[in-house]
């Protein structure tokens, strides 16, 4: 009986201690939440007139606008597999594409490793090719379980890239595809595959230097 009482008291003590900690924690939460002026904002407010601030804000907003491209630009949403050709806020073309699969390829023996992601960030059109030829890199052979050829001509593939290609650096292209049924899926080795009609329209509109934003 005395043992049971002792256990009960210990549990009660723990519960009270826990409750005290919870109350202390909640009071910290409430107290800290009310500390609005902690970053010294209200001090600065009293020193600057509202009109000066509003004028400054207008100027900053204008300067911010000046960073965005004046001409048309390309947005690529790798999550949704969509490409948008835009001018300002107007969408000129909306295309379903295929982006990087995110898969990993390891060379048997483990010497080299490739990650098939579409690179993200700001790029620009660096080259425009009609009837592009793909010079197959080593991974294309390794992926198919073939030997990497020693003869350069064995790497030439004239069909895979479609009618046009827009290069945006490091061997990455926006190009056509034979696998149109896979448009809308993340299946590529990092390049952006586009259907024929959309590719033609994008190729015609995008000049060298056109900015590409991939996210």
């Amino acid at each position, binding site marked *: 009986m005395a043992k049971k009482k002792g256990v009960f008291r210990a549990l009660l003590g723990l519960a009270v201690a826990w409750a005290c*900690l919870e109350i202390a924690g909640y009071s910290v939460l409430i107290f800290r939440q009310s500390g609005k002026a902690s970053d010294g904002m209200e001090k600065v407010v009293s020193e600057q007139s509202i009109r000066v601030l509003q004028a400054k804000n207008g100027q900053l907003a204008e*300067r911010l606008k000046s*960073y965005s491209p004046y001409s048309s630009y390309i947005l690529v949403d790798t*999550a949704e597999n969509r490409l948008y050709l835009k001018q300002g806020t107007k969408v000129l073309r909306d295309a379903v594409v295929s982006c990087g*699969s*995110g*898969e990993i*390829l390891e060379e048997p023996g483990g010497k080299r490793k490739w990650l098939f992601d579409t690179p993200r960030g700001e790029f620009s059109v660096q080259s425009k090719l009609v009837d592009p030829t793909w010079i197959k890199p080593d991974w294309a052979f390794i992926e198919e379980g073939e030997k990497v050829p020693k003869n350069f001509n064995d790497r030439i593939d004239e069909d895979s890239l479609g009618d046009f290609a827009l290069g945006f650096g490091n061997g990455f292209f926006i190009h056509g595809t034979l696998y149109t049924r896979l448009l809308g*899926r993340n*299946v590529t080795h990092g390049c952006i595959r586009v259907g024929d009609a959309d590719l033609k329209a994008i190729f015609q509109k995008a000049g060298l230097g056109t900015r590409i934003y991939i996210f």
Partner: protein
Amino acid sequence: MRNKIAWIVILLSWLTAGAAADEKTKALEKNKLLEAEMALAKTSASYLIMNFSEKFISLKSRGIILKKWEIRKARFWGQYVPIKAFGLFKKSAWFPPKRKSIVPGKEAQGDVDLQVLELKEMPSRYRLTFPDGIHISIRNRTRKFFPFLGNVGSSLGRLTLLPLKALWFSIKKKRFTEIELVMADEKDSKGLYWSFLEGQSCIIYRPIK
């Protein structure tokens, strides 16, 4: 009569002074937001703005909005977040997406069931950790039973653990901010996970008034 007029004058001046101060604070907050964004827009890197005033998260580059997600609901605990850029330190989820390996020689293009990393593989419930003790938990509204149960569980956990955490940070004299974000749907929370990369900058803008 004179007393009444005096009271009215005092009340009016108090009200107008309050309104002017509010407007000043708003203008200053906007100024800080624009200054912080300007610094990010100068570089080629994309960045995020969590704008709790407009209830939107925007992924931007050079001032252009690349993508926008709606914030359905947000809850805050702890200190206000200063209006400046923070780099995302860590994304954590119970079931993070895993990259698949290609087996050489297996023709992937012919497969009906492609083993690729897509939006649907992303977690819809995860946590973002920033410097200065800022943590953001993300989830989405759901009517499905198990995710709903998960939401209830995490709310109960938060109710008990959050005060202890706040106390701990307070004893350690460190900043502490906990934000819970509820996105409109699963696709949005998954989309944010996909687009928000570790190391990427983010401005968290929560107006004071």
